[in-house]
Every structure is written in structure tokens, then in C-alpha cells.
């Protein structure tokens, strides 16, 4: 058994409600991730997936709970001092659904990667390797985000995250908006990177079929809570929770009848 890379214990986040009281966005979230491993977080919109992802990278401060990377506890807030900030960035990087918002519109793909490499004290010449790794060619290297397609921007966002040489990559619905042919290219890319660099993935998605392809472990969330977690294959073939069964019954495929999902929903509410 390899040593644990990421450990998450009793993570929780609540938000105040306008009329008083608090909304539980995430509660009692626990999981571990090995180097090179891949964990999926699935659930419907509003189930708390993104809240967990944002707490991992430090964009949202947890109310309680502990996140450790390589045995070191992550500080709940982004540190002020630059070296500490950079170390923290190298632990976990995040890729969002819409790469547009996270990319500097003024920088070409190549410049974008060079600036990330420079910031983290890595050789700028690695930019070419990274571009190649994510399948971006010479034309794309010289193009600004607005002149790249959605899939190309997503590859660039992944390359930039990798430029930091992170231990863990958190992807929040990173392939959701892409055409399937491009989505498949990115999923293949993630597989390759995982194998070649040993980076571990936290893969947040509402798409069970995609999660099945990418991850070894999965955590099913509903209303901020974990309803089921375990090896992806087992959870998706022999779900023990009725909510997981509902999710599975809702996925279209050969011989699928949407009425099965309605029946599964009915089973859930009794």
C-alpha cells in the first residue's frame, strides 16, 4: 500500500440563510487519495460537490475539518508569504468548467505557461513539453484564449495547472461543456498524465459514465452529505444507497426507460 497523499477529515461548510438558520453545503466529508489515484465526486447540482472542490484548493474556507497533503495539514487560508503560497499551490491545482474565466485574455498559450513556470521557479523551456503533452500545436501556442476553441482552452487550463507540477489536480466539471469527441481527447489526456507524472485526480462531475471511466474511487453526495463511497466499480454496479440507484437509473443508455428513474425516485421518498 502506498502512502496517503491527500487526507480529508470531517470537512464541513455551512452558509447563513437569508431568513436565519444555516444551509449545510457540505458536512462530514472524509476521504483519502493515494499518489496517482483518482477519486470521483458525483451528485446533482447543489449537492455540495463544488463546495468540497473549492475547500480543497482553498477558495472556500471550511467551517471545520482537516485537509492534509503528504502528512502536512493545509492552512485553512491562503498564506500571505510568497514561498508558502507557492508551496501550497504546488500541492493542489484546480481546473474549472469554464477555462475562460481562469485564463489571462492578454497572454498567448505559450506566454501563459511560461509565466506559470517562471513563477514556480521551473524552466520556461518546459512550456513546449507541456503544450505537446496536452496536444496543442504551434498555431495554438501563439494564440490568445479567445482564439482557441473550448476544448483547446480546456487543454491550456490543464497544461497551466500542470506547469505548477502539482501533486493533486482538482477538476470541477472540467469536461462537462465539451463535445464528446473533444471530451474523449481530454479524458485520454488525463489518463496519460496520471500514468506519466503520478499526479492524483479529484474529479468532480455529475456524469456517472465519465466518472466510471476516470476514477478508481467514488463519493456520492446528496444535500451536502456523503450517501455512499467506495471503489467506483462496486458503487456503480452494486450501489447500496437508493439515491445512488436513482442516479444510475437516470443515465440514458441502450434499453433505458426514463420511467425507471421515476420508479427509483419513488423508492427513495418512502
Amino acid at each position: 500500500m502506498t502512502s496517503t497523499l491527500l487526507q480529508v477529515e470531517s470537512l464541513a461548510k455551512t452558509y447563513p440563510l437569508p431568513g436565519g438558520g444555516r444551509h449545510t453545503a457540505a458536512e462530514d466529508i472524509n476521504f483519502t487519495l493515494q499518489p496517482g489515484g483518482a477519486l470521483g465526486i458525483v451528485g446533482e447540482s447543489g449537492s455540495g460537490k463544488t463546495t468540497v472542490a473549492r475547500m480543497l484548493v482553498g477558495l472556500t474556507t471550511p467551517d471545520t475539518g482537516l485537509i492534509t497533503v503528504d502528512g502536512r495539514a493545509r492552512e485553512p487560508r491562503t498564506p500571505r508569504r510568497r514561498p508558502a503560497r507557492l508551496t501550497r499551490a504546488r500541492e493542489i491545482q484546480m481546473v474549472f468548467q469554464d477555462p475562460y474565466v481562469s485564463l489571462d485574455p492578454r497572454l498567448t498559450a505559450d506566454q501563459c505557461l511560461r509565466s506559470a513556470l517562471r513563477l514556480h521557479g521551473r524552466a520556461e523551456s518546459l512550456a513546449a513539453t507541456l503544450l505537446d503533452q496536452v496536444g496543442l500545436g504551434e498555431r495554438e501556442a501563439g494564440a490568445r484564449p479567445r482564439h482557441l476553441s473550448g476544448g483547446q482552452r480546456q487543454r491550456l487550463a490543464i497544461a497551466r495547472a500542470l506547469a505548477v507540477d502539482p501533486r493533486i489536480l482538482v477538476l470541477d466539471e472540467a469536461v462537462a461543456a465539451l463535445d464528446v469527441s473533444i471530451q474523449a481527447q481530454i479524458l485520454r489526456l488525463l489518463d496519460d498524465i496520471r500514468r506519466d507524472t503520478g499526479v492524483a485526480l479529484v474529479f468532480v462531475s455529475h456524469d456517472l459514465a465519465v466518472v466510471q471511466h476516470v476514477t478508481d474511487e467514488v463519493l456520492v453526495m446528496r444535500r451536502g452529505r456523503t450517501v455512499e463511497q467506495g471503489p467506483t466499480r462496486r458503487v456503480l454496479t452494486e450501489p447500496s444507497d437508493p439515491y445512488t440507484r436513482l442516479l444510475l437509473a437516470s443515465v440514458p443508455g441502450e434499453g433505458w426507460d426514463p420511467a425507471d428513474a421515476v420508479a427509483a425516485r419513488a423508492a427513495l421518498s418512502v
Partner: protein
Amino acid sequence: MTEATETTESTETTESTERAEATPTLLSLEDLTVRVPGTARPLLDSVTLTVAEGEVVGLVGESGSGKSTTAKAALGLLPTGASCEGSVRVDGTDVLRLRGEALRTHRADTVAMIHQDPRATLNPVRRIGDFLVERGATRERAVELLAAVGLSDPEHRARQRPHELSGGMLQRVVIAGALAARPRLLLADEATSALDVTTQAEILTQLRTAREEQGAGLLFITHDLHLAAAYCDRVYVMYAGRVVEERTARALFTAPAHPYTRGLLSCSPTLGESRALVPIQGRPPSLSDTFPGCPFAPRCGEAEEECETWLPERVPLEEGASVACRVVGRRSAGRNGWAQPTTAGQTKNKVSHG
């Protein structure tokens, strides 16, 4: 007046007898080509498609393949500045020639469109009930419709305004609105794509029941091949503004023919299958890409040199099915002893057939 009506009727009767199909055709696009200025290729290129009464027909393809443009054509809605060839008929009426009141009636009563974003359809300050009444429902039926699309406490919902409802509820309202005028033809353009899968399944179940009760035809647009094949009777696959394959939903799963369709299936993650994904190389074409021959050639693993100059034409497969691929066409013709296609409009491409 009476005479004119009679003449029209008799022409229509002749036409439909000629077609001699089991179920009458409701929507029929024939060789529809739509161009807009400033693009290197047409948005739609010789699109031929039918929806019969009561039939559910899927239209799938990646972003920019022309699915929405096709659906809008059925409403008589073309992009500004567009020029077109071919025809669009709904129930025998030439939609592209409709003007003024006739066009308004067509859009309000005959055909109804359900978009992906319900907020684009709903007036934020009007009550839900009024939205349905505007579309021809009585107060009573408005409540029935809301119940039929799965909204709890429909009387109360009818008095609410859009901002009080969630996205999934609003989409149910939009579907109720589409059904209100009892249209012959429903067009659903990614109508459930933005919703959670569980909500999608529920809405699709209700849409199926309500649609069956009214006997309306449905053109169901989605980028999700699995969804199309599971929900529809027949499916058209589009690529670069063209229909590349037309199959029964079942055949699409069990025997996809076009290299693009097969490519889509092998790159779509499938629940319960652990095979590796095989991505289609390259990217979907844009409107600045032109193709001297088969548009899929630059990405196709089976392309031969001749494909680069072969003008796509429909090659018949089994009953009612067709594929626009010379290699697959040749193969299946060889296997089944089918003759080369002889349908009018396809002869012009014969020369390049080799």
C-alpha cells in the same frame, strides 16, 4: 374562396397518396441548403429529414453541426440574410413561403419549440397560468397541463411567477406551454440538457405521456447519442451541416454505419462498459472550413484518397435507413446486392463516384 380551398385540398390528397406511407408525414425537409453571407460553407447542406405523425425523431451531432438551424427551419425561421434552396413542409404546407398571419398561426398553433433555457421563453413578470392561457389553454386546462408535466400543487403554481420556481420546474412550465396549443409538431432543442439527469428522466417521461395523448410528432435535438437512441424511434446524425446517417434508434446502437457515428459511440463513455475511449481525432469543423469532398475525411480513420473529392450522397441501407459514406455504401451494396442509388438529386454526383 371555396374553390381555392378545394383546389388546395385536392393537390394535398394527391401528394400524400403518392407518398403512400403507413403514417402520414408531418414534417418534411427536402434537400434544404441554407447559406449566410460571409461563411465559407452552408450552415445546412442538402438536409433531408422527415417526422411522421406521432413519431419521435432524434437529431444528434456535435456543437455547430446544424441541429438548431434545422429545427428553426421547421418554424419558418432562417438566420438573417440567409438564402436557401430546397423545401420545408409541415403537414403539406410550404413553410418557407408562409408570410404574415399564416406564418404567425403556424408558429403559434401548428408547431411549438422548447428551448434549453426556459427563461428565454417565459416572461418574468407574468404569472405561470397567464403564460399557458396566452398559448390557448383555458384556466382549467392550464392547471391540468401543469399537473401533467409533474408539478405539485398546480393551482398554486399557476399563480406564481417565474422567479419563484427552480430551473427544472420552469422547464416543465415551458413544456406545458408547448403542449397548450395542442401543436401537431413539437421541437425540443436540448430541452433537458441543462437539468440534472434525474430531473431529465422525469420530464422526459411526462413529455412522452403528454405527447402520446395528443398524438404530436417530436423532433428531439440532443448532443447525447445515448439519450437520442434510447428515447427516439428514429435518429438522424448530423455533421458539418449535413445528415450523415439516418437509422432506427435500435440500429444506431447495434449497427452504427457511418464512421462518424461509430466514432461518436466509441468516444462516449458508457455506464457499465470499461472499454477504453477511442477519441475522434481533430475537432468539429467550423464555418470557415470547407471540404471539396466528404466533410469527415480529415478526421476519418477509413478515409481513402477518393473521399476527399467525393460529394456526399445518401446511400440506402436497410428499410428507411441511409448513410452518407462511400466506403460503407460500397461495402453494404456488395453485401446485400443493392444497386447504386438512383434517387433524383443524387445522380448529379455520379461522375465523382469512380
